[in-house]
C-alpha cells in the first residue's frame, strides 16, 4: 500500500465560522492502482487531492504515505517525497515558461541530483511523442503538447503514485482521448498508481476504482 486516508476531515475557519470541506474520508491506494475522485464542483475533490499529496494537512485524521503520517513530516521530507515519490499533472499544465520542453522534464531529476538527466528526459519526451519539440518553449506548443510534456515531467523520477487534477479539462475531445490513453498506458507500463480528480464520468470509468464525493462526504466506493 502506498497511501491510506484514515478518518480524514478538513475544515477552514472563516470569520470565526467553521466551514467543513471534507468529513471522515477513508480509502487506500495500492501499487499500480488507478483511482478516480469524482463529484460536483465544491464537493472537496481538489482538497482531498491536496491532502493526499501532502500539500495540505487534515484537520483530523491521518494520511499515511509509504507508512509515514504526512502531517508529521517536516518541509524538507515532504519536498523529498514530492520529488521522488509523487508525480503531478494539472488542468492548466503549469510548465515553467522560461524553460524548454526538455528542461521542464529535467527539473525533477535535477532536484533529485540524478545523473544523465538530459538523456533520460529525452527518453521520456520520446515516450510521449515530443522528442522533436524538445527545444521548444511552452509558449510555442499547443495545449495537448504542453500536457504531454507535463506527463513526461510527472513520470520523470518514476514515482510510485501520480496525482492528476482534471488532466483533460483544458483540452478538446480528440486531444483529451490521446492524453488519457497515454496516462493509462504509462500507468500500466511503469506500475505507477494513478489518482485522477475529474468530473468526467467517462474518464472516471477507465480507472479500476472510484471515490465519489458530495458535500465533502464519500458517498460510495465503486470498483469499475
Amino acid at each position, binding site marked *: 500500500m502506498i497511501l491510506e486516508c484514515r478518518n480524514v476531515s478538513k475544515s477552514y475557519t472563516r470569520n470565526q465560522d467553521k466551514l467543513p470541506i471534507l468529513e471522515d474520508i477513508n480509502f487506500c491506494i495500492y501499487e499500480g492502482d488507478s483511482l478516480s475522485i469524482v463529484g460536483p464542483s465544491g464537493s472537496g475533490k481538489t482538497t482531498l487531492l491536496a491532502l493526499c499529496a501532502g500539500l495540505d494537512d487534515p484537520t483530523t485524521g491521518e494520511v499515511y504515505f509509504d507508512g509515514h503520517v504526512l502531517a508529521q513530516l517536516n518541509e524538507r521530507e515532504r519536498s523529498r517525497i514530492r520529488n521522488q515519490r509523487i508525480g503531478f499533472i494539472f488542468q492548466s499544465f*503549469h510548465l515553467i515558461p522560461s524553460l524548454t520542453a526538455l528542461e521542464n522534464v529535467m527539473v525533477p531529476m535535477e532536484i533529485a541530483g540524478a545523473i544523465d538527466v538530459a538523456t533520460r528526459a529525452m527518453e521520456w519526451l520520446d515516450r510521449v511523442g515530443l522528442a522533436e519539440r524538445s527545444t521548444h518553449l511552452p509558449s510555442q506548443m499547443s495545449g495537448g503538447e504542453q500536457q504531454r510534456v507535463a506527463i513526461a515531467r510527472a513520470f520523470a523520477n518514476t514515482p510510485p503514485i501520480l496525482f492528476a487534477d482534471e488532466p483533460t479539462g483544458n483540452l478538446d475531445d480528440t486531444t483529451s482521448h490521446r492524453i488519457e490513453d497515454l496516462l493509462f498506458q504509462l500507468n500500466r507500463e511503469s506500475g505507477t498508481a494513478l489518482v485522477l480528480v475529474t468530473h468526467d464520468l467517462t474518464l472516471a470509468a477507465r480507472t479500476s476504482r472510484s471515490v465519489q464525493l458530495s458535500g465533502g462526504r464519500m458517498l460510495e466506493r465503486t470498483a469499475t
Partner: protein
Amino acid sequence: MNWVWRMVRRDLRTQWLKFLSFSAAVVMGVGALVATEGFSLTVKQAMVDQSKTLLGADLLISSNNPIDLNEPFLADLPPEQSLTISFASMARFESTGETRLARVRAIEGGFPYYGSLETRPAQAVSALSGSEPMALVDEGLMTQLDVKPGDRVSIGATSFEIAGALLKIPGEAALASSVGPRIYISYGDVNQTELLQKGSRVNYRLAIKAPSSFNADTWAESHKEQLESRNMSVDTVAKRRENLGEALDNLFTFLNLIGIAALILGGIGVSSSMYMYAKSKIKVIAVLRCVGATSGQVGSILLGHAAAVALLGTVAGTAMGIGAQHLLPGLIQEFLPMQLETHIEWTAVLRASLASLSLAFAFTVLPFSKVWSTSPIQLLRSGTEVAKRPRSQRWTLLTTVAVVIAVTLAQSPSWGLGISMLAAFAIALGLMSIVAYLVLKLSRSLRSKSLPFSVRQGIANLHRPNNQSLMVLIAVSVVTFAVANHLLVHHNIIGQFQDAASAERPNLILFDIQADQRGAIDALAVENALVPGESIPMVTMRLTHRDGKPLHEAEIPEWALRWEYRASYRAMLRPTETVIEGQWISRFAGGIEGVIPISLESSIAKTLAVGVGDKLSFDVQGIPIHTEIASIREVDWQSMQPNFYVLFPEGVLEDAPQIFIQAMNAPTLEQSAQFQRKLVHDHPNVSAVDLRLLLRTVDDVIQKARTAIQFMAFFFIGAAFLVLVTSLYNTRNERLQESTILRALGAPRSLVTRVLASEYLALAVFSTAMGLVLATLGSYLIVTRLLHMNYQFHVPTALWLACVMISVTVLVGSVSTWGVWRLPVMTVLKSEKDA
C-alpha cells in the same frame, strides 16, 4: 547549488531583456555614485599633489595695515620673502573708454614660489620687472571689453601698457576673475597711481618660502598672540588645505546626497517592478515546490534573479558613472583653485559599484521574500493567499533598511551628516507618499456620474489592482519637485538683483569718496543726467573691548577680533532698518569722551553675544571711544543699498577720518558708463559698481553653478523618470487586458484611447500639482530661511513646467500602451487565462 545556478541561467536566457528593463531604475543612481566617488578622489588627489601651489608659498601673513618687516617677532622668518599689495580701484581701458572695478595687485619679490602665473603671451609676466609701467589683466575682462596686449589701462594717476592676459593664478579659482577681475602691476609703480592715501582700503601680504627645516605651522602657532595683537592673519599650506577640504567636503556631501537619493529612489522603483515580477512568479514557484524543490532552493533561485537585476543595473550604471567622471571636472574646474586631471579612479569605481550593488540587491530581493515560501497548493487553489508577512519578509525588510543605512553612512563624510541625509530623504519621501496616497483617495470622489464614461473609467483605473499609481505619482512629482524647486529658487535670486538694479531705483554705487569730492561728484552726476543720492559717511574702526574686557578674553569668533567695522552715523533710520530691541538715539551731545549710544545690527549682536545695555569700545584710527548698545536693528540686506552693522548718532563722528558712499540712479547703462569714464578721469580714487553689471556677474556665476548642479540633478531626475517609465511599462498588461475587455464589449478604438488618455492625464495632473505644491514649499523655505530673501512665486515657470510634465507623462504612458487596439482580443484574453 549547481541546479540553482542552472535555473538562474535558464531564466536569464529568456528574460534578460525584462531584467534589464527592471534594472534601468537604478542605473542613474549607480552612475551618480560612481561619478561622485571618482570625482571626489580626483579632487582630493589633486589637492595633495598641488598643496603648495594652493598657497604659492609656505607661509602667508596678511594685514590691512602695512607690515613692518622690522618687527622683532618677524626676524626669525626665512629670508626668502615677497610682499604683495592689493586694493580695489577703477581701471579705465583707454582704447575703448570702458571702466571696471578691478582688484589691483603689485608684487615685490618672487611670489608665487610654487606654481606660476600663466599668461598669454607666456613671457608677459617678465614685463612687470621692466622700467616702463606694465600691467597684466585678467583674460576674461580683456575678452569682455575687447582689449588686446599693447592697449593701455589707467589706474589712478598712471597709464599702464597691457603686457598680456592673465590666464591662471596659483591657488585661485578661474571663477574669481568673473567676480573680481584682477590686474597685476609692478610693485615699484604703486605709488605713481596715487591711490594709496590715508583711509584707503589696502591689503598687504607677506609670502615666505621656507626651507624644509622650517615648520610654518609651528611658527604660526607660537606667534599667534603677536599676530593677533597686530591684526595680522596667517595662512599655511596645511591650513589652506584644511579649509579647502572642509569646503570640498560640503560639495561632496551635496553630490553624494544626489547620488544616494537617486539610488534609493531607483531602488524603490526597481523594488516596485520586482514586486510585479515576483507576483507573476508565484505559479512557477508553486510548480517547483510541487516537483520537490525546497523553499531554500526556490529562494536561492529568486536571489539569483535579484542579483542578476542588481548586477545589470550596477554594470550599466558604472559605465555611465565612468563617463560622467570625465565630464564632472570640466564643469566644476572653474570653481576650484587647483588643476584637475581627467582620469578614471578605479578604486573609486570599485568602491561605489560595490556600495551600489549591495543597495540595489537589497531593494531587488525585498519583494521576493514575500513569495519564496509560496505553498505548492497555489497550483490547485489559486485563490490561496501567500502568508501575509512571512518571517523571511520581515528579516529581508530589516536587512534592506540596514544596507541602506550602512551604504549612506559609508558614502557620507560623517555619520551625523549621513543620518541627517537619510532622515531628510525619509521625511521627503514619506511626505510625498502620504500626499500621493491622499490624492489617490481623494480621486475616488471625483468619479461623478455627470462625467463622461471615459473620464470616470480613467480615474477609476487609478485604483486598479497592481496599477502602481502610487509609484507613478511619486515618480512624476519627484521630477516636478526637483525641477520646479531649482527654477523657483533661481528666479527668486535673480529677481532680487533685478529689483535692486531696476532703472527706477539707485543702481550705481560709488565708494571711497573723500569729503572734499562730494560737491564735484554731485555736479558731475547732474551734468550726465544721473540722479545723485545722499552721501553716506563711513568711518573705519576696530572693536577692542566688550564690557570693559579685551576681546581675546571674550569667547567670540576669531574673525571678529580682526574685523574692521565700517560704521556710519545719522539722525534717522532708513525704511530698510527696524529697531527690534531698545531705542534708537538720533543725536548725542556728549562728544567722543562720553559713552555713546549706538545701534547694532541683530546678526552681529548675536555673533558678539551682546544686547541692549552692553558696552563696546572701538579704536577709531588711534582714538579710543566707548559706546553702549542702545538698540538692536534688523536690516534688509537684500535692498542692495549701503547698510551698516554699527550705526552712531549724529554729533560724534563728524570730525573723524571718513570716506563717503553714494548711491545714484543712472537710467541707462550707456549713461552710467559715460559718467564712470568722467568719474575715473576726474576722481581716480573713487570706485563705482553698476548693479546691472553686478547682476550679469551674479547671473553668470549662478549659470555656471547651475550647469554643475543640473548635471548631477540629471541623475536624480533621470532616476525618477526611469521609475516612471518602468512603472508604466510594468503595468502595461493590466491596461492591455482591461482595454481588451472593453473592446470585447464593443468599445470602439476612440473610446479605449480616451479611457487610457484620461487615466494618464489624471495621473499627470495629480502628480504635477503635488510636485509643484511641494516645490513651492521647498523653494519658499530655501529662499526665506537659507538665503534670507523675500519669496516670490513665479507663475510662468510653474505653468510652463506643469505643461511639460503633463505632456511627458501622457506621452510616456501612451508609448507604453501603443498599439493596444491592434492586438487580437482573443490573444489577450487567452494569455490572461493562461497566466
